[in-house]
């Protein structure tokens, strides 16, 4: 429960208001975690927030967090430069079920900063590429200047063993790429829909839209995996801040199989 000090080794400005930290522990110990897990990140004297881990779990000497500046703590964190020290508690939560989807085609559906919680999983899938069928990333964003992890997307798109479908909401005339919602990118994917496994990371309203689209193509809801964001404080299922109905997101999640939490998506004010 006590934060461990980590030094910010590098800051990457992804898009305005979104930044990535590469962190090194002060004691030099590797940080072992699984893709999909999160940490509580503490700026001393300011506050603590839950952040999913976005790095490659096979590089445990570097902890990677991508943060969007949306509130007092994340805005204060945005001012920190390389060399600053923050506290880390974690890793917490249930990871993506990578071993359960071995042998299947995989489709990742996400938009803007939603790629952050999936990035580590995509890295791990590519490390174990021979374990899976087709690998398709469907990524949507606002415009051609809002593309997160653009270097990763270029690298992934250049591989011969995976596909990346990118879509933007609008673009300047003459743009030759796909324009529209993420749904258009999903429809462009060519996977074995009756057996494919989908990983969706979007806001909750948009998750339902993605799940409905996938269902229309043949992906049953027991083959869709989502990650939830909630107000997590203790991160060990004691304080109750992240409780939704019977589940504590920090402990039982943040990764869920969609069919197991679908009813919660339709409850207002949750």
């Amino acid at each position, binding site marked *: 429960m006590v934060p461990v000090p980590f030094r910010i080794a590098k800051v990457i400005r992804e898009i305005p208001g979104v930044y990535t930290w590469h962190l090194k522990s002060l004691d030099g110990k590797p940080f072992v975690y699984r893709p999909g897990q999160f940490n509580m990140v503490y700026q001393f004297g300011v506050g603590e927030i839950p952040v999913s881990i976005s790095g490659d779990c096979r590089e445990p000497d570097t902890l990677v967090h991508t943060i969007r500046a949306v509130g007092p703590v994340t805005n204060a964190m945005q001012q920190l430069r390389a060399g600053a020290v923050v506290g880390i508690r974690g890793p917490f939560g249930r990871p993506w079920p990578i071993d359960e989807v071995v042998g299947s085609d995989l489709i990742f559906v996400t938009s803007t900063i939603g790629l952050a919680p999936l990035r580590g999983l995509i890295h791990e899938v590519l490390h174990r590429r021979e374990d899976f069928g087709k690998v398709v990333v469907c990524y949507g964003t606002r415009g051609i200047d809002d593309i997160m992890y653009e270097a990763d997307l270029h690298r992934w798109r250049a591989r011969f063993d995976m596909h990346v479908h990118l879509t933007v909401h609008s673009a300047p005339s003459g743009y030759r790429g796909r324009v529209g919602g993420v749904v*258009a990118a999903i429809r462009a994917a060519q996977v074995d829909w009756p057996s494919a496994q989908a990983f969706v990371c979007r806001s909750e309203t948009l998750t339902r839209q993605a799940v409905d689209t996938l269902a229309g193509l043949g992906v049953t809801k027991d083959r869709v995996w989502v990650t939830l964001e909630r107000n997590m404080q203790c991160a060990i299922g004691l304080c109750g801040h992240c409780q939704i109905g019977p589940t504590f997101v920090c402990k039982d999640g943040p990764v869920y199989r969609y069919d197991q939490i679908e009813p919660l998506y339709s409850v207002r004010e949750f």
Partner: protein
Amino acid sequence: MVHIVDLEETLAHHPFAQGMDPEALRTITGCASNAVYHPGEYIFRDGDPADNFYLIRHGLVALEIHVPQGPPIVVETLEAGDIFGWSWLLPPYRWSNDARASDQVRLLKLDGACLRGKMENDRSLGYEIYKRFVPIMARRLAGNRMRIVELATEPAVHSRQKG
């Protein structure tokens, strides 16, 4: 031996015509022609008479909105298997956006003015057409609502601010 695919067969293979009554298919074929557009070429422009609709066989089509005192903005792209243009169904039969070929585009061009007349005289044909257009319109409307949600809930970036 060269296999020449006739228009009816081409139309029948497009998702738009799947399951269509054969008689309706024959009538629609009578209003169809092939069309090819080169990259950057306009298929139609905002304000022009809307007397056609299009089924995409190959290529990417950009729907653009003209912005006064600025360059047009692409708001959607459509690809093989998609259909575009429904202003021919609704008075005053004028296009409300531009459509432009993003790359080499092959289309089936349907003469909407011709079909409007036939639909007036044959309500079952009109029903066949509307049965195909309404779900597409509904899907695009729902998709655009979701895009509003997305734009309202995700961070805005201006190109000049990047970096």
